[in-house]
């Protein structure tokens, strides 16, 4: 999640900070004391936390789009209500995270403008298509399941407002996950065409979810600021392994096959072969698996994914259409209470 850069101004490196203040700051973190907005913090920490919270906020409001497109087609009143509430939650998470970011020194409007102009990024997984109802089930089951795993570790971080926001978000994400699990279970207990639709959606989203945690960390990740300052708690590969350990057997229990897939430029699966690597290694207790296509990951993150343009242009359209309302209620700046 920490891959956004928000400012052209170079931050002072930790070695340029006051050594005594820096030592006190690092001692507080190692003592498990939360850092609050009014506390002294290295500039690199403030900017890193801002980049992380802003990227997370961007991901929440962009992440609302693929699922939002299915609200009008939800197949029952209860599913329609649940999906609307779920997407609303994601927007609410965005709102909470923008408030955390605002306290770190960047205005809401600057963040929204940087998002729609492509200056800042959002999570890569939302640049993929969701062509069927089963894709919505997979987003809620796999992507939200992965998000909970990641965010539970982030709730063990050091920055108070972000930690408290993660705790609130995780409670709601647990509902989303349960809803997704129920949808997948319903589909896989259903008719032949429902099962076929669900397997196709699983083929699309399994590799995307493996990429969700990001590529392998650098070898000395623990000693670098994001982990040393508890902005990031667990390595990407470790989270990915925990995800596979949890979801590979769950998918198989539901009757889903884990495949290696090839895709075209639009994100459509063009071929599938069973992932022969999927098995439980009794010695380590881990499930082995085939890594996703990391070349695809970098292509998509550079803006060449199937839905990058669509997602961003819809968000830009919404930002432009709503400009007169924001201007009317607050001259372009929105007055909000302080972060959690």
């Amino acid at each position, binding site marked *: 999640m920490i891959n956004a850069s928000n400012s052209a101004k170079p931050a002072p490196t930790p070695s340029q900070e006051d050594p005594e203040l820096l030592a006190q700051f690092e001692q507080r973190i190692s003592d498990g004391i939360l850092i609050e907005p009014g506390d002294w913090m290295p500039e690199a920490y403030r900017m890193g936390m801002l980049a992380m919270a802003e990227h997370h906020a961007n991901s929440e*409001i962009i992440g*609302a*789009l693929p699922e*939002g497109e299915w*609200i*009008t*087609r*939800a*197949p*029952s*009143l*209860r*599913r*329609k*209500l649940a999906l*609307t*509430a779920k*997407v*609303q939650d*994601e*927007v*609410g998470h*965005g*709102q909470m995270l*923008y408030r955390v970011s605002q306290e770190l020194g960047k205005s809401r409007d600057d963040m929204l403008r940087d998002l729609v102009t492509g200056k800042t990024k959002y999570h890569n997984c939302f640049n993929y298509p969701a062509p069927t*109802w089963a894709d919505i089930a997979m987003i809620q089951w796999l992507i939200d399941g992965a998000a909970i795993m990641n965010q539970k570790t982030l709730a063990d971080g050091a920055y108070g407002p972000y930690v408290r926001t993660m705790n609130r978000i995780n409670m709601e994400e647990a509902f989303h996950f349960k809803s997704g699990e129920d949808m997948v279970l*319903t*589909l896989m*207990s*259903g*008719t032949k*065409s*429902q099962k076929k*639709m669900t397997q196709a959606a699983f083929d699309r989203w399994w590799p995307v979810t493996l990429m969700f945690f990001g590529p392998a960390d650098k070898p000395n990740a623990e000693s670098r600021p994001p982990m040393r300052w508890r902005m990031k708690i667990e390595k990407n590969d470790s989270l990915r392994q925990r995800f596979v350990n949890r979801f590979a057997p769950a998918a198989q229990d539901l009757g889903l096959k884990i495949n290696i897939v090839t895709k075209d430029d639009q994100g459509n699966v063009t071929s599938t072969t069973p992932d022969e690597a999927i098995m439980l290694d009794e010695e380590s207790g881990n499930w082995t698996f085939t890594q996703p296509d990391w070349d695809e990951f970098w292509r998509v993150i550079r803006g060449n994914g199937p839905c990058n343009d669509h997602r961003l242009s*819809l968000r830009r*359209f*919404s930002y432009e*259409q*709503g*400009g*007169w*309302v*924001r*201007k*009317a*209620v607050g001259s372009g700046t*929105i007055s*909000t209470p302080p972060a959690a």
Partner: protein
Amino acid sequence: MESMLSNPLAVRILSHADDKLMLGHVQSDWTGLGPILEEDIASSAMAQDDLSHALTLYQYLGDRYDLDPDVIAFERSAENYFCCDLVTQSDEFDWAGSVVKRWLMATYMLIVIADLSKADDDSDLGARCDRILPEQELQVLHLQRWIIRLSNAGDEARERMQLALDRIAPLAGMVVEMPGHGPSPQESCLIRREEIFREWTAGLHETIKQAGLNATFSLPEQTQLGGRRSRHADHFKEQLVEMTEVRRVDPGASW
């Protein structure tokens, strides 16, 4: 289904449920795309209110006629929906139009749901409507404030609000059209229709005055037929196709 569709009270309840369904359906399309995050969240909550109110009324009818509420909501042919033309209008992502339309409908629904809640001989219906009313009152309050706030927030906002009202006000009269396929409504129903229209528009004019806007609402002739008499605009059929897209993939399947 046929016995429900031939009962005047059931059709009246169905018309309110269909209004709620379509209000929630169109408004839910804004979820994630509202002009301000806080209002995106609030308007999504109102869309959920509308959808759950629709469910409450469909459940009432489902219990009476032994029908699944989802079948009532999604498996009628277009001519058996009795929603008014105003609620099926697309907002075209015009926030002013969305606020004006929702305010008109919320104010109207508060009157008719309160009316239904007083049904002396049906405590079940009354209890269900009583649960809807507090949320309906909140919607009216929220939307009234937006109408007044935006209309007093500078030239551009006022102009947009007035344009939206100019576009939507002519459709308002059809909201009180008597629903159903049957013969011309009885005299007592027409008198009640005029009472509701007067009560409704009197409340609207109070807010319009505070907002500094202008609007004229008129009751259409009985000969004018709209959505409540099954004369839906073409786009309503497209909305129904969209709304039932997943159900039609595998009819009868559980989703």
